[in-house]
């Protein structure tokens, strides 16, 4: 075993592992990229039912309706609104008028089924995606964010 040969083995092994890793990355990347959409984005570019994405905005005032552990509410950017349903315990800071990011998919009836409502950790905190979405919708009030 010469030094050159050993180096060749290393390079080959390294290429193999990297190749496998690259294949893994490429096959899983497409499916696991989760896009962020605001309600207005969805009017412009609708997303087919079943595709996973993140929906963010404000919880519309007066829209929250609870039935046991199932909650229905609307996510709005103050121009458009999307109906959402969620089964589970809501995060502590879920409130009407507050920013929220939900992950899930549209069912056939055009209702967004949230599999996850992302918790915020702070009362004054506005998720940056939501802040951007509100800015785009022309509804941003700086005092909302912290």
């Amino acid at each position, binding site marked *: *075993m*010469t*030094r050159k040969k*050993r180096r060749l*083995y*290393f390079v080959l*092994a*390294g290429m193999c*592992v*990297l190749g*496998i*890793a690259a294949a*893994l*990355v490429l*096959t*899983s*990347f497409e*499916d*696991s*990229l*989760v*896009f*962020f959409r605001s309600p207005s984005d969805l009017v412009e570019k609708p997303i087919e039912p079943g595709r996973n994405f*993140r929906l963010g905005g404000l919880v519309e005032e007066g829209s929250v309706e*609870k039935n*046991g*552990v199932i909650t229905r509410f609307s996510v709005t950017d103050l121009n458009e609104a999307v109906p959402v349903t969620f*089964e*589970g*315990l*809501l995060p*502590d*800071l879920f409130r009407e008028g507050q920013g929220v990011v939900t*992950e899930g998919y549209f069912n056939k009836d055009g209702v967004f089924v949230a599999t996850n409502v992302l*918790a915020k*950790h*702070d*009362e004054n*905190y506005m*998720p*940056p*995606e939501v802040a*951007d979405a509100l800015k785009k919708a022309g509804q941003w009030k700086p005092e909302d964010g912290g």
Partner: protein
Amino acid sequence: MVAEIGQFVLILALITAIFQGVFPLFGAARSSQPMMRFANNAAFVQFLAITGAFICLTIGYVTSDFSILNVTNNSHSLKPMLYKISGVWGNHEGSLLLWSWILALFGLAVAVFGRNLPDSLKARVLAVQGMIGVGFLMFILFTSNPFERIDPAPLDGSGLNPLLQDPGLAFHPPFLYLGYVGLSVTFSFAIAALIEGRVDPAWARWVRPWTLAAWGFLTIGIALGSWWAYYELGWGGWWFWDPVENAAFMPWLAATALLHSAIVVEKRDALKNWTILLAIVAFSLSLLGTFLVRSGVLNSVHAFASDPARGVFILIFLIFVIGGSLLLYGIRAPMMKGGGLFAPISREGALVLNNLLLSTATATILLGTLYPIFLDAFTGAKVSVGPPYFEATFLPLAIPLVIAMAVGPFLAWKRGDLAGVISRLTFALLLSFLLVGFIWWQQTATPVMSLVGLGLFAWLLVGSLLEWSERVKLFRGPLLSSWRRTKQLPRSAHGMTVAHIGVALVILGITASETWQTEHLGVMRPGETVSVGGYDFRFDGAETVAGPNYEAVRGTFLASTNGGKGVYLFPEQRQYSTPPMETTEAAIRPMLSADLYTVIGETDGTGGYAVRIYHKPFISWIWIGSFVMFLGGALSLSDRRLRLGAPRRARRQKAATPDLSGAKG
């Protein structure tokens, strides 16, 4: 007054750090003893000064001195004392002060414990430590001053985020930082070696204890963080592949790789360049983690501040450190010639495979973590890369890694005999197939990944035990001679076995809890009973209770198996007043066989409460296993060879300092 003293000693520390970063380098280049010795004193002064600053800030917190802006923003007079103290590092400025303090602590440790290091190497290591210190102290003083005053002082502070008011989290940052910053020492050793242009087995022996210590602390820090997420967030999960978690996991993976490649340098004088590169990469990932977490690029509980000036400073610092060290590497690395040759099937080969897999895993995680940030920066598109990506890329790399983990320690150095090793592992193979077969027979619907996970657990556990028993010749002769061999076996060998068993236990905890977890989600009324995972949970109602700085709705559950006495569980929904915020406090009954986990949610207004109950088999083993891994690291660290440094130095030292060689660890 306290704040001014703190500010003053912090400036003093910066000046000391600047000198520490410059003079010893000149000293080492000109072989000037006094200038090299200066590094020791500077490290000592720097440590004293930052300790002073830290004490000043702590006094500010303990006495609730609200004329200090940092205290006002993050503390409150009614807060319990533990959280007043942990509040010191529960914010951006204070946590950076902790970072610098630990950096200075490690600098001092090198100065004190590095007595048998060659003078020039030690001076250079301390100089690099000093330079890193300059960067962080400048960052604190110019962008994140913890001692800034506020005038007029408010009557009370705005409090600490209640999620952070938790014993687990009080200790999570210090341990994580001990790990992050511990890697700065290996980095400094790598840079010093590049400046000297020489890496030898002795160097690896000096570096290994620091890597071990950093790795051990990182392990504990990450375990504490995930434990906190598990019981404090109330979602029942413990790992979310969140960028913040990845930021700590990547340095851990790199440190694990470094730990193993340093063995090859030490024993076989090979893989030198690679080890140096890993040391640079590991610390760079620590810095990157700090940057990601602290700059506000990521939104999470960790992002205290999103001041752009800070982000720009860290980014420049990052470019300077990573770019500078890689440039030096590029210039110097080709000068270093590799030593021992070895066949692909050998202990070295197995360690190379370990390094390949670990660093590839790190790279895929890095890609998934940074991709959304880059996409946002360049196209403005908001995406997130979720757990499916990380699971799909990490697990296929982790499986061969674990398979090789049991095989590697059996292989001989230079040229191993794979067929012989596999025949010695027959028992482990048999047992893992038996376990998998039994579980599949019990429940044919068990997912394939669960079977793989459990098989790997048995394979690694039994394989590690077999390797250990072979070393001590267990049952191959009188037990007494095995005992003698156990005592003679270097502690680092025991440490490896223990740490590998820890990994096996973590695999058991993850797989079992993912596979057999059961849950109940629904509205329960007082007196109702549901059955989850073989336990009957009776809901006895909820009441309002008052805590020191919160009010809570506390539910009462009685969990029992048929006939058993049962245990009470009291989950809470807390309403804090400063800052106004609600938190969910899950009530958990941890047991070795399973955790009972209850969460209480909102009332439906007619006496019913939304509740979530989990039965999570074996989940505690994730943290038990992590602790066992840490113990393995600690055991290796106590190895005499590491404490004494290289043998040729030790022989000379022995006469001078007999107490050192006789010390127990």
